């Protein structure tokens, strides 16, 4: 009797013990806290990542740090604002006392690398996504390559040797290799990008073939490959896509956004839903009673003198807001604003000091291409070609033609023309360095420029903390 019962229990227990049916289904737990990818209605197409690569250009970095490292540091601009408002470190940049820990330098370094990262990700994603329209796919990749090249160009001219993100994050690549990579990206972009006129209307603002050519011309200008610079500038000029805006001051108007002269610009929208270069207009707008902004990055006395010496009133008045003046749109700038001059190219008529303004920041335009053309031609000894391009730029602003064919003189004149034409377009400091004028110019202004040091920005300290094997630029 007893044994029977035990057997029964044995029979009852054994299945329980051996219950572990080895089914891995037990591990298939449904996610309840987070929506799983396959249940999500979010589908990411390649263009989403291209858009966000452009989106990087609207970051706050361009509204403040960028002003410091491109303009305030130069002879064109001063820090501005009130004497006690340093803008964190803008006073260091203005006084050429910046160091490897200056936050603005770190900000642009990091932001440019993150921009490169987004572009690279967009390229990878687009390549692997399986788009059936090959042309569309190539165009998207080419757009991202243009953006990647643009940021590498900004990096290499500011820092010299810099890491190539896809190669080595710990060590800097020689700048020649960086330039090679930029040229490769731009050549690819030129091959695949449509002309400005070939884009659908809704795509207005995307990188074009002309933009890639213009940027490559500029790259060659920095590399002093004059033939190439001349050729690529010429391609843009003869593409039939661009012409000079008849009135210089119109270039920065809302109505001439992406206009005839525009080759590449950052797109910004002031209407709701607003999305502009964050606070770009606000940081540079007049400050104080009757003002509407922070008043940073103001035209220097030296720049004003340069305009006046040239008798260049058109460009002076389009570039500078004077305290107490009445602007083109009828707005009166109070006589009690903090500073005597402000940057008019950053002025947004509709959005004033809004954090998201409608100001499209112009990055490449035909006038610069003409000046690249002129400079390259002059360096190649072709003065007449140089003069032709240079004088196109001058005649628009009613300045007399330059006639000298002396290469040295002409070089100086072209450089001066660049300064006046492109003031506050974030190029001046690098032009000074590129042309070797920086030392004399800055020291004349009482700034402690050290030859062999200040030509390059220091690699940010935080980067070197992270990657101690990375070398620092000389003198820093």
């Amino acid at each position, binding site marked *: 009797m007893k044994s029977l019962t035990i057997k029964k229990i044995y029979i009852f227990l054994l299945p329980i013990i051996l219950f572990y049916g080895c089914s891995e289904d037990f*591990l298939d737990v449904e996610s309840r806290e*987070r929506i799983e990818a396959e249940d999500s209605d979010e589908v990411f197409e390649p263009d989403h990542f291209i858009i966000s690569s452009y989106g990087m250009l609207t970051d706050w970095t361009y509204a403040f740090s960028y002003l410091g490292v491109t303009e305030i540091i130069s002879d064109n601009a001063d820090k501005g604002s009130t004497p006690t408002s340093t803008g964190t470190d803008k006073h260091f940049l203005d006084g050429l006392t910046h160091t490897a820990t200056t936050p603005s330098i770190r900000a642009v370094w990091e932001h440019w690398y993150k921009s490169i990262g987004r572009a690279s990700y967009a390229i990878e994603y687009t390549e692997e996504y399986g788009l059936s329209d090959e042309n569309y796919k190539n165009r998207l990749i080419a757009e991202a390559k243009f953006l990647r090249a643009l940021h590498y160009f900004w990096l290499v001219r500011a820092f010299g040797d810099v890491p190539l993100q896809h190669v080595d994050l710990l060590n800097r690549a020689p700048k020649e290799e960086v330039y090679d990579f930029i040229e490769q990206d731009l050549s690819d972009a030129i091959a695949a990008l449509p002309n400005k006129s070939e884009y659908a*209307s809704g795509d207005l603002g995307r990188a074009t073939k002309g933009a890639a050519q213009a940027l490559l011309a500029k790259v060659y200008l920095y590399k002093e490959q004059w033939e190439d610079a001349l050729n690529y500038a010429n391609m843009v000029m003869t593409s039939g896509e661009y012409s000079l805006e008849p009135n210089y001051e119109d270039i920065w108007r809302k109505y001439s956004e992406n206009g005839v002269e525009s080759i590449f610009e950052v797109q910004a929208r002031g209407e709701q839903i607003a999305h502009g270069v964050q606070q770009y207009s606000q940081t540079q707008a007049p400050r104080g009673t009757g003002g509407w902004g922070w008043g940073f990055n103001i035209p220097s006395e030296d720049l004003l003198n340069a305009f006046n010496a040239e008798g260049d009133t058109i460009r002076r008045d389009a570039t500078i807001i004077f305290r107490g003046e009445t602007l083109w749109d009828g707005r009166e700038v109070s006589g009690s604003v903090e500073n005597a001059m402000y940057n008019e190219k950053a002025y947004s008529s509709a959005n004033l000091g809004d954090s998201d303004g*409608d100001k499209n920041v112009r990055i490449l335009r035909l006038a610069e291409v003409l000046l690249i053309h002129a400079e390259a031609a002059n360096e190649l000894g072709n003065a007449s070609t140089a003069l032709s391009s240079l004088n196109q730029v001058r005649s628009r602003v009613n300045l007399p033609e330059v006639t000298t064919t002396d290469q040295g003189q002409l070089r100086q004149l072209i450089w001066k023309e660049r300064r006046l034409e492109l003031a506050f377009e974030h190029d001046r400091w690098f032009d000074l360095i590129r042309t070797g004028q920086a030392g004399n110019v800055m020291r004349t202004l009482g700034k402690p420029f050290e030859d062999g040091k200040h030509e390059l920005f220091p690699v940010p300290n935080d980067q070197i903390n992270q990657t101690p094997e990375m070398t620092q630029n000389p003198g820093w």
Partner: protein
Amino acid sequence: MKVKLFWLLCCLAIFPAGVYAQNTITGKVTDADNQPLPGTNILVQGTNRYAVTDFDGNFSIEASPGEVLEVTYVGFKDRQVTVGDETTLNIVLQEDTSELDEVVVVGYGTQKKADLTGSISSIEAEDIVRQPALTATQAIQGKVPGINIINSDQPGATPTVIIRGLGTALSGRDPLYIVDGMPVDNIKTISPSDILKVDVLKDASSASIYGLRAANGVVIVTTKQGKKGKARFSFDSFYGAKSILNPVKMANPDQYINYFNEGAAAIGGYTLQQQQLYNTDWYNELAQVGSINNNTFAVSGGSDHIDYYFSYNHYEEEGVIEDHKYRRGTIKNNNVYKLFDDKLKLTQNLNISFTNENPKPLGAFNNAYRQSPLVPVRYENGRWGQAFVNQTTGIVTYQAGPGESVGRLYSHGNPMADVFFQNEKIHTTTLQGGFTAEFSITDYLKATSRFGATKYFFDKRVFNPTRERWIASDPTRTYEEFEESRSNATNEETGVIPTSWAYNSLYIEDKETFRWNWDGFLTFDKTFDKHHLNVVLGGSKEKTNVGKRLYGKAYEVPEKEQYWSIQHASGLFDNVSENVYYTPRTLMSYFARTQYNFDNKYYITATIRRDGSSVFRTGENFWENFPSFGLGWTVSNEDFLKDSKSINFLKIRGGWGRLGNQNVPLNVNQIHTSTGSAGQNYVLGPNQELMFGASVASPVKDLTWEIVEEWGVGLDFNLLDYRLSGSVDYYDKTTKNMILLVQPLLDSQFAEDFYDHGAEVSNKGMEFTLEWKDNISEDWSYTIGGNFSFNKNMVENVKPAYDGMLGGSLSNGRITKRLEEGQPLGAWWMWETEGVWQNQGEIDSNPSIEGAAPGHLRYKDQNEDGVIDDRDKKFFGSYIPKYNYGVHLGLNYKNIDFSVDGFGVGGNKVYNGLKNTRTDNENITADTYNTRWTGEGSTNVHPGADRDIEASDYYLENGAFFRINNITLGYTLPDFSRYVSKLRFYFTAQNPFMFTDYSGFTPEIIGGEGGNPYRTAGVELSAYPNTKTFIFGINLEL
């Protein structure tokens, strides 16, 4: 069986076997606690006469004077009693305390301690209850080598337990807790008085039977069960008073005023007058004498078929902040049913725990530290004191004459008001239980099936009287002003009132979770000649994190507490509610273990566990094998030592194993989008339409469990007639793939921090235990013992560019820790001070930080580049002790017992964040005042009244301490009633003394997130002070 024995006894009794006149001797066999021992064998030496005690321990046997009775009972020391003339004989058996016969729970089975090949430490009930505590882990502190327990004396706090060094930065750090075979989240719900023993599987060769969750060690708790015999009733009660052990003396009003004025002289600003209105000792106001009260009632017993244990425990503690209470009630019931001739054993465990907690803001300790002694707790008119100062007159008051200006000394509010207004209640209920069936198929094969489950309910309510707080924050504010501000803030068009202007808010949070596990395994255990083989083979399924959380917030409920529910909230505000259903986790496992020994000399153990986890189901691999092996050699069983009197036991053992940690952080949401003006989006086209984009902020990294591998060797010994015992262990443990929070390089693609496997952590250490036990005479016995363990923790093989994880934030923008190869986890990283700036000239001619001024600390330019920056920061060791040790002394004289326990750590550093982060005009300690820099040449060590708040080694202090954590004196009354088997009174001083150089309240600082090494572990900012407790208690057994 019993019947047969009885017959045998009767038969034997019939035949007289000796020539002497035999008397019938009757008597009783009991244990030391006067509990009867049924079933004790009593044999008259050299004869066949013997007896077995009955249910009440009574026996009757024929014996002649001079004959010797051999009394034996399993688990007790054999005793020989020579028969005299007496006819009644009461025999007391001493429990066999030889550790070698002790049984150790090894996971899915037990093993004799002498047979172990791994490193397992056991703590017995008496050692646990000696240290009155909420949680058993608190009581273990200092008693076991290799286990570092960081305690907090905050009511209801859970101590952190680190076994053999910290092996992870961000993943779960807690050991796996197994209670009666069932995994649980923690053992805070179990009354220490219900615990029979705690076994800690310290090494990988032992713990690998728990595979994927055993990386931090395994703590196995066995609760009490009834013993066969009469019902035993016990009642234990104690009451204690607690106060701050190590108070810090703050500056008095005169010192504060001088310090303030010196600071003002340096940086400008108003000064304070010497004559002030108030003198407040904030800690005196804030801290009170807390209390602890614990009552346990238990009844247990058993018969042939059922053993039962039932207990009720009530624990209540009030902290050193008024009304900061923690109460817990637990009901425990363990029953064992033995059926079918003991072939089937059913064990039922049940533990119900209720807690009831009134937390108070711990920030009050931080805040009280910072309060000026010139600010009153309340003004004469009853309004709360606040740090207002009349800057014109230099009097600390809110009152001002015409044209006088009033400001604040600092921004902190009144900590007493914070405590007063904090109205929070937390209730929890935990139902934990299980059912185990063990069936003996044959005498060597047993099948076990076990189901365990835990249901947890959590209920929290916070009432925040927003309006009262607003009024309290400024003595001049009135209700009318509140109304005015409220109506000003109200949106005129919509009538919407911002919630910050609601009269009060109510926050409710309900959580419930459920977990269960089901194990089944077969145990084969047989001895063939000299071969002993034990094999366990089984599987397990487990599901955890089944549950939900409901959160609600409402505004303006009626003031009476009875109406505090969202239902009664005014309709003026939108209520907030959130509900989350947790994603459950499942775990599926197979395991096998073979233990073999030859002749009790040579041991080999091999274990393998295979675990699959749902957490990693989306990854490529979600199964992993966790093998281990162990070897042992009991040298003392060899012939050459067998008869040694001095070496009673000697065993050498070693092993290797692999463990996992599945409680790892996971990457989520790598793709970012935005619906507004954000850097993902861009505008295109003639109308500049907003285009929505997407960006990847961190790389997609499939994470998996962390893997720990460890090997170790050990030695156990008993010498000199078992009086000296001890063990030595060495281990080398490596976490192979530690997960780090990686800060992307500036020049990398990614913008956001992400988790990735990126480093190894090595823990190497030694452990020593030594204990001497002796009975000098019948009346005198003593024990003296100690343990010491040493651990070296180091981060190794960090992936390139994965160094640099920062931590130890002081909440003011300063950090104190950094992860780097070659440093311990949570390593301190900060500037090194080299004196104090004596004058401006020094600053001008040396590298300095921005804002340096005379009297500030001077930081060393380590790389001599002329700039003081992050590259000049230096590593200064870790908050984790390098060694810790415990000592124990026990004395018994007749009915008096006395014991002292001590615990200490060393080789660690702690950061005095309270001292460092002083800003504005906050108070300072008297010591800071007395040592301060007062001008050129005064000191080159301590900063002056004007100083910076940078993190530096000046604030990093030696964290070593030695604490007497228990002194107990007990007295057991001699037999005075046949109804009372034991009555003992005792007095315990808990933490009466601490020896430390640390200048703050406590060098034991768990820190944020339960001891995350990259949070505030080791940083004193708001730590609860250590407390000392004086306790009187009583143990009564019937």
